[in-house]
């Protein structure tokens, strides 16, 4: 069923009785060409691009619960490509270009809104770093504009640009950045993949990965064994556990990142704005709630909930940047479990086990990468080799020393 304005109109006249489920609920077959473990945005996107770009449609996506309830439903919905390292430029720019055409491609309203992303700076050192990053972006053809204090004030009058402790000197703006509707991304990819023949199997938890002679042969699940010669992992937060089922250790620790939504208010914040003197970023959803987040709680955890010290830090940083937030009530707060890699950059590629692939280690950046991650992961699975765009994200870079440490933090996952 194709969605369109005409269809919406016709259904309204018929009392909305003609809508069908957006994807099937098939039982698992005994074998597939490719199994994708993890029915979040990355896994569903991988299945979609396998079918669309490579004609591989005998694919199952296995999800332990309902799709999209992991990190896909737990992020702050920001899309951007404002990185400094060239390897990250090309990959995230690919992802952003896929976002720009996603709704037409999927025939699904993912509410992609290129409202602009502004990174504020408050001191000369951080201004220099922002200028350097902006120039690096522009050299690779990515849009970046340097804003001065008055331009920031004009774009968002609520920001306390004259704050005594953290005065705003300006900001680095990527106008093509913005937000998307996170649930719609999962649903849109699920529906589009399903239409191309992919089986989306929910409530099917993988309990083992079968490896014979260094090759994967299938998986054990709560709904029985399923055979496949190629398996892709897209299980952010749990990559270590799944990889250990296949007998490999990955350079990843699991950490929790919290996010928050305030009560709904009239339009206050037109862009995505990040504070430069603490960990805080904010945007406003179409329902009016302010959506914001901060840094990691900082210790290994698999629990999807955080602790109060970070709640305190995030609100404090927000109020320092935008004092009127102090009058708002928080409505919801939640945590998602991140794969924190040892250099802050993701892993998309082959593993030491033949036929086992992964898209993992997404740290804070998983949502914005969703279509690019799926696209590159699908290419890698279809060709049994990484695409040029994700070659730098190989798992063995930690052995060869080709690290991608965007922030220069060193091998400490909780500090990335």
């Amino acid at each position, binding site marked *: 069923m194709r969605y369109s304005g005409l269809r919406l109109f016709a259904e309204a006249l018929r009392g909305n009785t003609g809508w069908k489920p957006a994807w099937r609920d098939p039982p698992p077959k005994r074998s597939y060409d490719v199994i994708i473990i993890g029915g979040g945005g990355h896994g569903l996107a991988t299945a979609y691009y396998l079918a669309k770009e490579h004609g591989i449609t005998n694919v199952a996506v296995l999800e332990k619960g309902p799709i999209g309830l992991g990190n896909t439903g737990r992020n702050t919905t920001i899309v951007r490509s404002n990185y400094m390292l060239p390897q990250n430029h090309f990959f995230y720019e690919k992802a952003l270009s896929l976002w720009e055409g996603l709704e037409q491609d999927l025939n699904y309203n993912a509410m992609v809104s290129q409202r602009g992303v502004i990174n504020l700076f408050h001191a000369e050192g951080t201004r220099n770093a922002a200028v350097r990053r902006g120039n690096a972006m522009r050299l690779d053809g990515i849009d970046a504009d340097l804003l001065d204090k008055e331009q920031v004030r004009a774009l968002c009058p609520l920001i306390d640009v004259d704050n005594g402790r953290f005065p705003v000197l300006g900001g680095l703006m990527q106008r093509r950045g913005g937000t998307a509707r996170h649930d719609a991304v999962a649903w849109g990819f699920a529906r589009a993949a399903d239409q191309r023949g992919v089986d989306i199997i929910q409530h099917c938890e993988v309990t083992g990965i079968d490896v014979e002679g260094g090759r994967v042969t299938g998986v054990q699940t709560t709904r029985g064994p399923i055979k496949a010669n190629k398996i892709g992992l897209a299980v952010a937060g749990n990559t*270590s556990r799944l990889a250990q089922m296949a007998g490999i250790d990955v350079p990843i620790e699991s950490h929790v990142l919290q996010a928050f939504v305030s009560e709904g208010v009239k339009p206050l914040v037109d862009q995505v704005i990040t504070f430069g003197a603490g960990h805080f970023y904010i945007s406003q959803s179409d329902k009016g709630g302010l959506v914001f987040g901060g840094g990691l709680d900082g*210790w290994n*955890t698999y629990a999807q909930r955080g602790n109060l010290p970070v709640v305190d830090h995030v609100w404090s940083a927000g109020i320092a940047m935008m004092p009127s937030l102090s009058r708002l009530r928080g409505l919801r707060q939640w945590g998602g479990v991140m794969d924190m890699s040892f250099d802050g950059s993701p892993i998309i590629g082959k593993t030491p086990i033949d036929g086992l692939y992964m898209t993992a280690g997404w740290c804070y950046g998983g949502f914005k990468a969703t279509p690019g991650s799926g696209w590159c992961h699908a290419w890698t699975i279809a060709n049994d080799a990484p695409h040029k765009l994700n070659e730098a994200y190989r798992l063995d870079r*930690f052995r060869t020393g080709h690290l991608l440490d965007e922030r220069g933090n060193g*091998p*400490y996952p909780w500090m990335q």
Partner: protein
Amino acid sequence: MIRIDCPWCGVRDEVEFTYRGDATVVRPGEGASEEAFHDFVYKRANPRGWHVEWWYHGAGCRQFLKVVRHTMTHEVRAVARATEMPEVPAE
């Protein structure tokens, strides 16, 4: 709020401490293989369960502690001095 029973200072809130990662990894000796150093820097069990980890009590006694904490419940089961190895529950 995680509360840690520091052997030197008593029970304190997590905000007094800085997390310093997995305390089961041991630096290889001089002349150890590249593989051993790779594992020391990058290989982690990342368990869903009991985890032995370093916490630095920066706002207290400024000692490094070994803490046994559960990564699903966040329960702190044992706290030991840096030179000791606390007992890790089986389950």
